[in-house]
Every structure is written in structure tokens, then in C-alpha cells.
């Protein structure tokens, strides 16, 4: 008996040591490169620059919510938020709809050669956004495109269309990734569930709508939230498209606005914008999570 407790006690000590070994590397990096930057951005956003006279040295002083007032009055920033929201309202449902359709088809008995299709659809995910944007930029440009029949009559790089041309690039890269997540969820549905449906004479469409789609809702929520985050953070694609189209301004998306504000340099205003954007992202993805949870619960 006495020996038993001794072993337990020494175990508890060694667990503590083991826990430290397991948790400290990730924990300290997480604090240094996630938590501290966020706190520092908040701190920086509360500062403002003052000068003594016109040519005096610039001094950073505590400015309270001055920068936040400036953010709320900054029209280009809100215009860029509105632009990516419009983008997201159209692009995210289209992308997830296509991903769901392709995943359902891959999972149905209607299609042969699923392994090939799976890899073909997923391949664009291996293309970095910057490269994808450069590639599509060439494909859109009237004199280089393989599709001159289309590009000579439609200017994909015009002010009206360029947002949707960028949406196509994002869709092209991420459909396969999202499809794979949904497809994995479909694969984990137990076969027995289908048996009853088939006995009742349900066809593939019926099975897809009544059984499969409801069961992959969690996967759709996950992909939806990551897509919303990605949309609000759009940067690489529009940044590249500035080389192809004058319609992509330096305040085209929130992150471009932050980048151009920071290079002015107006660091405190840019920090305040970052904080507002991060909060907006968090609130939006959290709301989607809660709304969909409530709907699937009822």
C-alpha cells in the first residue's frame, strides 16, 4: 500500500514536468507571436502623434480613442469593408455550393474515376495565391489570354468586373480544398443510414438532400467560417492585380488600406484599423457559428 502511494506521488511530480515540456514551447510562442502582437496593436492604436509647431519633432502621446474616431471617419476604409462584404456574400456561397456539389457527386455512385477527379480539383490549392493571381492576370489580359474570343469582348480587368475576376481566382484556388473537407465528412457517414433510405426507394437526389446534406452541415459551417475570415483578409490577389488593372486601388480591400496607411507611415491609425478589422472578423465568424448552431439544434 505504502509503495503504491509513493509511485503515484512521484508520477504526479513527473507529470507536472512532462506537462511543462509539452506545453511551454507552444505556449511561449503563442504568447509571443499571437497574444503580445494583439495587445501591442491595441496599445499602439491608442497613441497619437503630436508636433511642437509645424516642424517640431514628432512625439507619440496617449490619444485615447482618437485613432478609432479617425477610423470611423475614414471613408476608403469602410468602402473597402463594404467591397469585401459584397464579395463574400456572392463568392462564399458560390464556392461552397460548387464544393458541395462536387463532393456529393464524388460520393455518389454516378461517377467513375473519383481518385483522379479528387486530385484534379484539389491541385489549385497547391498554387500560392500570389502565383494564382499572376496566372489568372495573364489569362484575363486581352493580348496574352488563350481565350481571346472572350477577352476581346469582355474586359475582365475593368472597374466593374475586376472584383469578380478576383473572386474567380479565389474560387479556383479554394473550391477543391473545401470540397475535400466536405467529402471527408461524407465518407464518415455510416453506410447503414443509406440502407433504410434505399429500401424506401429513395434515389440519389433524395438521399443527397434528406440525408447527406444535413449530416455535413458541421463541415459546411467550418468551411464557411474559414471562407468568411479569408474574404475579410483579402490581400495577395488584389495586390497582384494592381499590376494588371488600374481599377484596383491601394484601398481596394481592408488589408490593402491598412498596408497603405502603415506605409504613409501612419502606424497608429493602421493599428486601429487592424483592431477594428480583427474584431469585425471575429464577430462575423462567431455570429455565423452561433446562428448555424441554433438552426441545426432546432
Amino acid at each position, binding site marked *: 500500500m505504502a509503495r503504491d502511494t509513493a509511485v503515484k506521488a512521484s508520477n504526479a511530480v*513527473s*507529470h507536472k514536468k*512532462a506537462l511543462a515540456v*509539452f*506545453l511551454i514551447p*507552444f505556449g511561449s*510562442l*503563442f504568447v*509571443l*507571436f*499571437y497574444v503580445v*502582437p494583439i495587445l*501591442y*496593436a491595441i496599445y499602439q492604436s491608442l497613441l497619437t502623434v503630436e508636433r511642437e509647431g509645424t516642424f517640431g519633432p514628432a512625439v507619440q502621446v496617449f490619444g485615447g480613442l482618437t485613432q478609432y474616431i479617425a477610423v470611423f471617419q475614414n471613408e476608403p476604409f469602410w468602402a473597402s469593408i463594404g467591397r469585401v462584404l459584397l464579395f463574400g456574400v456572392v463568392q462564399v456561397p458560390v464556392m461552397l455550393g460548387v464544393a458541395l456539389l*462536387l463532393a456529393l*457527386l464524388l460520393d*455518389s*455512385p*454516378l461517377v*467513375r474515376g473519383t481518385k483522379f*477527379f479528387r486530385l*484534379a*480539383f484539389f*491541385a*489549385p*490549392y*497547391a*498554387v*500560392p495565391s500570389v*502565383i*494564382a493571381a*499572376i496566372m489568372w492576370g*495573364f*489569362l484575363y489580359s486581352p493580348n*496574352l489570354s*488563350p481565350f481571346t474570343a472572350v477577352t476581346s469582348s469582355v474586359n475582365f480587368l475593368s472597374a466593374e468586373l475586376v472584383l469578380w475576376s478576383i473572386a474567380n481566382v479565389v474560387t*479556383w484556388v479554394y473550391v477543391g480544398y473545401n470540397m475535400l473537407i466536405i467529402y*471527408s*465528412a461524407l*465518407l*464518415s457517414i*455510416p*453506410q447503414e443510414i*443509406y440502407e433504410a433510405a434505399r429500401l424506401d426507394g429513395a*434515389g*440519389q437526389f433524395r438521399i443527397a438532400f434528406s440525408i447527406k446534406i444535413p449530416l455535413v452541415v458541421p463541415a459546411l459551417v467550418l468551411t464557411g467560417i474559414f471562407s468568411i*475570415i*479569408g474574404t475579410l*483578409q483579402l*490581400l*495577395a490577389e488584389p*495586390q*497582384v492585380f494592381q499590376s494588371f488593372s488600374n481599377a484596383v486601388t491601394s484601398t481596394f480591400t481592408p*488589408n490593402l488600406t*491598412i*498596408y497603405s496607411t*502603415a506605409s504613409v507611415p501612419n502606424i497608429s491609425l*493602421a493599428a486601429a484599423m*487592424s483592431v477594428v478589422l*480583427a474584431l469585425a472578423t471575429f464577430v462575423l465568424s462567431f455570429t455565423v457559428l452561433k446562428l448555424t448552431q441554433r438552426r441545426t439544434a432546432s
Partner: protein
Amino acid sequence: MTESTDTRTLRTQGTKKPARDGGIRESAVSRTVAMAVMIVATLYFLTPLWWLLVASTKTRSDFTTTNPLWFADFALFDNVAALVTYRDGVFLQWLANSALYAGVGALLATLFAAMAGYAIAKYTFRGRETLFNVILGGVLVPATALALPLFLLFSQAGATNTIWAVLLPSLVSPFGVYLSRIYAAASVPDEIIEAARIDGAGEVRTFFTVATRLMAPALVTIFLFQFVAIWNNFFLPLIMLRDESLFPVTLGLYVWNTQVSQIPDIRALVVIGSLLSIIPLIVTFLALQRFWQSGLANGGLK
């Protein structure tokens, strides 16, 4: 959140498809429509890559004058030679930098995330759920949102424009911790840890010799997705790096692409460079597909 994953049984890849009788009942029309959708989708996804491959093999004059979707004079090797010798082979330097940032970054990030996820799954300690929730909150904080604050911090430390400015922030993968926790809970039985304890193996040793083996599919998945995330990362290097010799390949090609209007010849280099920069990723994904697909299927959801 995790419990249902622990208990549910999962079908593995390959043993799929509803029973054959279900298939026979489907009409020829549904089959044709389904295959047509798949083929159109394949064309959409692969045509741009095909164009890039074809364009990379062309001479500068054929690039604009011949059919963009079919080969002309085969100049691939000349183009590669031009690319790797341009400005003393700066492109090779960029590729090496990307490999360093993504390779080392993803490897260490996977190790740290796996240890943390395993600890949260297999040990009870005070504040465990709080810790996990904070890390989950980290999943919702996108990398781009951190880029500017990180720049401000690194410039305080005088460490911008160094390898560390890109490498260190890449070592954190909150999503990896999440995936490791779910996967460790589902695939590392408590009995095995107990057995290792009775054999006198230390906790840390048990993790490295027993648990990592059982968690392998999840580890490969975390490694791959972190590798891609770092390889594709653009904002952080854009903000942090001034010195061209430190650029990853994405930033380098971006800068070249902005110069196309001044230096038209550089366009051919952008095209061949784009092709060469995606080949390593496609090869890695293909080589490891068995692992990451089952990793995604088992733990990437819920």
C-alpha cells in the same frame, strides 16, 4: 465537441461507394449529367495549370504569337537556364528561402502543436479547457491580421528584415493544436500510456516513441497545411523584408510581376518561375496524399 469523434467509427478511404444495387437503379441520364459536370469542373481547374505548363516551354516570340494552349518550339530548358542565371541566380535563392521558411517552420510548428494537443487530450490539469478555448480563439485570428502588429514588435526589437522575422511567427499553429487534441483523444488509448508507465518509460519518452506513431496521419496533415500556409504567406514577408536575398519565392515573383511594364523581358521569367514554384508543393501533396487524406477524414472536422 471531441467526444463524438472519439467514439464514432470511421470508414477509411477506398472502402466506399454505396452498394452496387443502388447504382444500377440510377438512370443513364443522371450518370451522363454527373460525368459532364465532373469534366467541365476538371477543365476549369486544370486549364490554367496546363496553360502555365505550355507557356513555360515557349520562346519569347512564340509566347504571344502561337496557340496559348498548345506547344510550339520547345524552349523549356532555355527558359529554365535564363531564369536560374538571371541576376546571379536570385530565383534559386528565393526557392531555397521558401524551402527553409516552410520546411523548418512547418516541422517545428507540427512538433510544438502535437505536444500541446497531446497534453491537452491526455492529461487533466487546472485551466485545461480555458487554455484550449484561448488556442481555439487563435484559430479565428488570421495570419494577415497579425502581420502589422508583428512588424511593429519586430521593429521595436530591431529584428525586421531578418530570417527570424518570417520564421518565428510561422512556428505557431493553433489549428495544429486543435487537430492534435482531437486526434490524440481518438487514436492514443489511455491503456497504452498506462502500459508505458508500468514499463517505466517517462512521459515525454512515451509521447515520442508511442504517441507520435499513432498520431502520424494527423501530424502529416498539420505539417502539410502549415507548410502550404508558410509557402503561400505573402503579407508577412512583404511587410518584414527589404533585402531581396531574404525573399521567399512568392514575394520575389510578385516584385518581378510589378516590373513587367518596365522590363517586358521579365514576363517570361515570371511564367517559368511560377511553374517551378508550384511543382514542389504539388509533388509533396501527391507523395503524402495517403496520410493527409486520412488525417483530414479523421480529425479535421467537427
